[in-house]
């Protein structure tokens, strides 16, 4: 069991380190959080679920300019990781939950709590636009990096044994 938790800590550490190392792209309405590509990890191990949650919690607590990201963003990541774990039998669907859940949750948070209105978008469409921008960033991270990562790590499955 100890190995399970330490694997989770490793996932959390990599998530937080990557978010911080690439900080300017990691927060806000137009974000490509490269660390979100790690959301494919529940495909390999359930330890990734608490790992992603804690990694996101740490990154948002210490670096995010949006303090409520600490609660909303981390809860969204946990929800998405659980869904990804549930979908682990269909590899190409594994990166989908973070795109949908984060797009909806972070977009709604930016709109309702921080009043973020994307430029050049009619006011009535601001909420879907906020959600859409976050979802696009997520999709780039999860599908452009996450899916190749998943395929590569598939060949090295034994590192996930505990």
């Amino acid at each position, binding site marked *: 069991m100890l190995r399970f938790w330490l694997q989770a800590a490793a996932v959390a550490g990599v998530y937080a380190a990557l978010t911080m190392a690439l*900080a300017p792209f990691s927060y806000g309405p137009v974000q490509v959080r490269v660390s979100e590509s790690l959301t494919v990890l529940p495909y390999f191990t359930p330890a990734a679920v608490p790992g992603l949650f804690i990694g996101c919690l740490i990154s948002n607590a*210490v670096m995010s300019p949006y303090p409520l990201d600490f609660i909303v963003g981390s809860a969204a990541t946990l929800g998405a990781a659980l869904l990804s774990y549930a979908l682990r039998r269909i590899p190409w669907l594994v990166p989908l939950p973070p795109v949908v859940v984060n797009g909806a949750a972070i977009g709604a948070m930016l709109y309702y709590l921080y009043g973020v209105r994307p430029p050049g978008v009619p006011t009535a469409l601001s909420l879907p636009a906020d959600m859409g921008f976050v979802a696009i960033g997520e999709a780039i991270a999860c599908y452009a990096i996450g899916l190749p990562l998943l395929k590569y790590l598939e060949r090295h499955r034994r590192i996930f044994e505990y």
Partner: protein
Amino acid sequence: MIRDITLGQYYPEYSIIHKLDPRLKLVVTLVYIASLFIIEDFFGYIIVAAAIFAVIAASRVPPRFVMRGLKPILIIIIFTFALNIFMTSGDVLWEYGWLHVTRQGLYTAFFMALRLILLIVGSSLLTLTTKPMKLTDGIESLLTPAKKLGVPTHELAMMMTIALRFIPTLLEETDKIMKAQQARGADFETGSIFRRVKALVPILIPLFVGAFRIAQDLAMAMEARCYRGGEGRTKLNALKFKRRDLAAAFVSAGYVAAIIMERILL
């Protein structure tokens, strides 16, 4: 680039705010955030601003250091401010072509900008005055009731502590891998965002494999020392709720009472 990153934004000082119990600070921060959302007019914000200035002064953290937290979202604040001014309908005060400034727009713009500024300044005081390790201890202690529901609180806190310890090592590792890849001709700085993001895959894999190796070694070291966690484990620096924490709790209750009174009376 990576070396410039400080973990969190803790500002070391010997102030009363720094010495307060992290559990109290966490709860007060959550109450503070909630209080910002029940305020409906500027009078409420005067109370909040006075409270925040008092806490900043007591914490001895230089105000410019506290305000630094606003830098990353300055553009968003300005943009939201401008949008609220020009796009809110109501009693027109000034008009030029399709642009119009309304009384309601001005009110909403200042109101939202102030809320955002107070939200960020207030909550960044928590991380400025509390060490990350103390924060995790506080979170573990606050989550104790969840243990009865089967939530592995000790394990989550242990994981958080280890992850925090991993971060500087992994940041250094990321830097090393990036330089090694660049020396082999990897290009992270040109091309479309799609291309640049994809170029990061060769960094992720060695970083990830390295982190898992560290975790394996650590697990072995902990098992060799008979770590079994949870029940009966003692702490070197146990959290104690002292008299000063009680006094701070009363002051915070006074703040909440003032906000509620303001809402009822004005």
